[in-house]
């Protein structure tokens, strides 16, 4: 089995009787700040590793989104065709999908481009800028941008929301620990503010 950042801590954990929760985290159109904040859970990551196995994550170098995921935290808005495809795989293969951070929840900074059309955007940033990049339409090397950046829940059904840019570790822990207990995510008012 692939060893992941979280599983490294397993040696220090008590052997768990119950099967571990299959946890995934994914990264769509975001800055990775939400994942950084997730890592800021610090020693709570050890606690997490005792009950959960990280089966997919940008910090774990796993290429395919696996089957039978219990909980998936999704950072980032849906901005290109690869994001759409991954979002659909995540939905099909996960029991609980969580919009993780403002970009996934609202579109946030990623969606600032929505006031421009895709062509306008690429022209202003690249064609009229210092260099040109492949549009990705023909060769699919660079994923094609979709017309409008969308919050995750406008692409797939989402079960819980963790607002924040990034959500601070306390929020993440409040949400994740509820999910691990099989309870719905209910954040207090001070934990659900955007921004």
């Amino acid at each position, binding site marked *: 089995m692939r060893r992941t950042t979280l599983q490294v801590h397993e040696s220090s954990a008590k052997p768990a009787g119950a099967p571990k929760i299959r946890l995934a985290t994914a990264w769509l159109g975001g800055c990775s700040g939400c994942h950084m904040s997730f890592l800021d859970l610090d020693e709570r990551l050890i606690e997490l590793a005792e009950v959960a196995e990280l089966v997919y994550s940008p910090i774990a170098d796993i290429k395919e989104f696996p089957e039978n995921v219990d909980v998936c935290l999704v950072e980032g808005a849906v901005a290109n065709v690869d994001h759409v495809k991954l979002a659909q795989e995540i939905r099909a293969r996960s029991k609980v999908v969580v*919009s993780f951070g*403002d970009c996934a*929840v*609202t*579109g*946030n*900074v990623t*969606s*600032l481009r*929505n*006031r421009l059309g895709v062509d306008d955007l690429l022209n202003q940033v690249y064609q009229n800028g210092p260099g040109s990049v492949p549009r990705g339409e023909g060769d699919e090397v660079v994923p094609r941008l979709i017309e*409008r950046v969308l*919050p995750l*829940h*406008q692409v797939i059904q*989402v079960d819980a*929301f963790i*607002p924040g*840019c990034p959500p601070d570790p306390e929020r993440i822990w409040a949400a994740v620990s509820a999910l691990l207990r099989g309870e719905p995510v209910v*954040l207090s*008012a*001070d934990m*659900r*503010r*955007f*921004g």
Partner: protein
Amino acid sequence: MSVVTLTVNDELVSAQAGQSLLAVLKELGLEIPTLCHLEGLSERGGCRLCLVEVEGNNKLLPACVTPVQEGMVVTTHSDRLVKYRRMILELLFAERNHVCAVCVMNGRCELQANAASIGMDHVRYDYLSPDLPMDASHDRFVLDHNRCILCTRCVRVCDEIEGAHVWDVMGRGVNSRIIADLNQPWGTSTSCTNCGKCVQVCPTGALHARGATVAEMEKQHDFLRWILDGREKKQWEHNR
């Protein structure tokens, strides 16, 4: 002054005739979400966040512009009210471009705070993402239409307190805009006295000080009380 008796959330309360329902609810210590209302300004009844249920009336009534009446039976918190208040907030977020993470008012915004307290953890409507300008022509202040919720606090404070009446609302519905003077850049307004009152009362990041960056803007409305106490009660001293 005549007294009326009404029922609020199953309790009998008395109030002065002519008081607004919102004023009475606040005296009772009830937390009613508001956005267009601001103590010291005339009421507008525009944001609809302060909606309450009044028995015998199928429509929900905005408490800030509803006078108390003898025998009124009022409910201030119910699933139905939370549902509508949340819908109103979601529509406000969907209508313009609210990106709290990069907003001058992040952390101190009344719209953001209302959304958090009511439990609006996402917006179910499509974002309109309108292409809106910023007016940065004024020496000291900026108007960012992307964050404006058309509460008209700026219009009222400039007219009623400062007496300059720089601001007005142009257009209808989703095309409404706050305009300076005869729809010209704020910096070219001949009526603006640069007092900054509109900036201080704006509940969102729409009006802010020039040069303020993310989460830097702080606003104060205390001046309204000082000015009005002076005007109305001839009371000029205040313990700050």
